């Protein structure tokens, strides 16, 4: 079964992350890399996303697309990245999420399976 792990971070943390000197940021990546390595056989996709300030949202106003600056989720938290994982059940996905090292929350969502062939 496939799940997507959405990695959240507070806006404050995202800012701190951006402000870090390169060397320090590389060091901060170490536990994250370890996590990906540990679960590499189960991770079937995913990406880290550029900061929220780079986001552009298309909204529909009476069906007419309107382009606006910023994310469509308004709140204290933003999505910093995601990983698609293929595991047996929710418990296994939760086990992975519990080991996520950044301190930010992880939302675990099963993907819709319509029995399409694997791409």
């Amino acid at each position, binding site marked *: 079964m496939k799940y997507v792990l959405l990695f959240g971070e507070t806006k404050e943390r995202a800012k701190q992350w951006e402000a870090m000197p390169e060397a320090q940021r590389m060091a901060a990546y170490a536990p994250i890399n370890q996590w990906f390595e540990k679960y590499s056989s189960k991770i079937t996709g995913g990406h880290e996303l550029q900061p929220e300030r780079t986001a552009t949202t298309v909204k529909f106003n009476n069906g007419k697309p309107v382009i606006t600056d910023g994310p469509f989720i308004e709140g204290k938290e933003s999505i910093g990245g995601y990983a698609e994982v293929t595991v047996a*059940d929710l418990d296994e996905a939760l086990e992975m999420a519990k080991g996520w090292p950044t301190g930010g929350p992880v939302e675990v969502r099963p993907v819709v399976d319509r029995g399409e062939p694997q791409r």
Partner: protein
Amino acid sequence: MTAALVRMLGDFDLAEELVQEALLEALQHWPTEGIPEKPGAWLLTTARRKAVDQLRRQARFRDKLAQLEGDVMRDDTAEGDDRLRLIFTCCHPALSREAQVALTLRAVAGLTTIEIARAFITSEATIAQRIVRAKRKIVDANIPYRMPTERELPERLDEVLAVLYLMFNEGYLATAGEQASRRDVAEDAAWLAGLMVRLMPDEPEALGLLALMRLHLARAGARFDAAGDLVLLQDQDRGRWEQERITSAIVLLQRAAALHRTGPYQLQAAIAACHAEARSWGETDWQQIVALYDALIELMPSPVVELNRAIARRYRDGAGAALDDVERLGEVLDAYYLFHATRAELLRDLGREPEARAALVRALELTANPAERALLQKRLS
């Protein structure tokens, strides 16, 4: 139903066992023969029939009685395993607490949605929807129907016990006042805790929780007077406490203690046992109670536990010392009515009447429970 059988057999665990057997029989028969017109009555009849069988065998049974609380009660049959899987699934942490409670009452304890709705003073539609949503999440998110792994077990067992404790408290507190027709969810929660103890007999916290529930239930009858008003522990008629339940709870606590893994439920049960064993309010062992609260705070730091400890200190060290402790909690517990009610009592003890009245008024603003309100009103007048 268990209560009816307890009256007949005078034995708690046996009665619970028989109800369980009747349920199992139902699970075997109903799918093929259809659900009887009055399922509740069918179950009671079946359980009663089993009870009569039991009584007939009582001579033999008495010999076994000594073993009953021991390993013989271990339920490691296939049905037992299946039931455990069901409980752990119903109490999966991916479900909301309300869903866990409703689902466990429905699927494990066998209550109908109407009964659950009545117990929680909500509509049947709300409960039905809650259950449907939970079941849908179990399927859609693929929550596994299995025992937690050994590594997950401590956390998952805590979750189950927390669900049962919440269920018990809601049931126990809500018994206040008018609703005599309401199903006693506190009894259901105790039955479920008993089931956990039979299925996992070496888990001291499960034993502790069951003991705690039995100690509360033993005093339940004395909690209200004829007018339906709340009677405080110190004013309760201790002759009305159910000694059998108290004794059975203490046996459970001893079993838990022998496993040498102390925990919050065992400590809370031990505190309740101190009260239950005191022949009068004046003979309460406050020294022991304060020591148990100290241990509890160490394991589970919480301002509410500290408030309770302060109350115990009032009787060991006097109102002045207790008030000092209470005042320290003012910031975190300002929205908690018992904080203000306790403060009022202590201030009154110390002769600071105007402050006591102000605290009582504040407490009244913070509780909606009619029985609690009545008690506070009485103190104010």
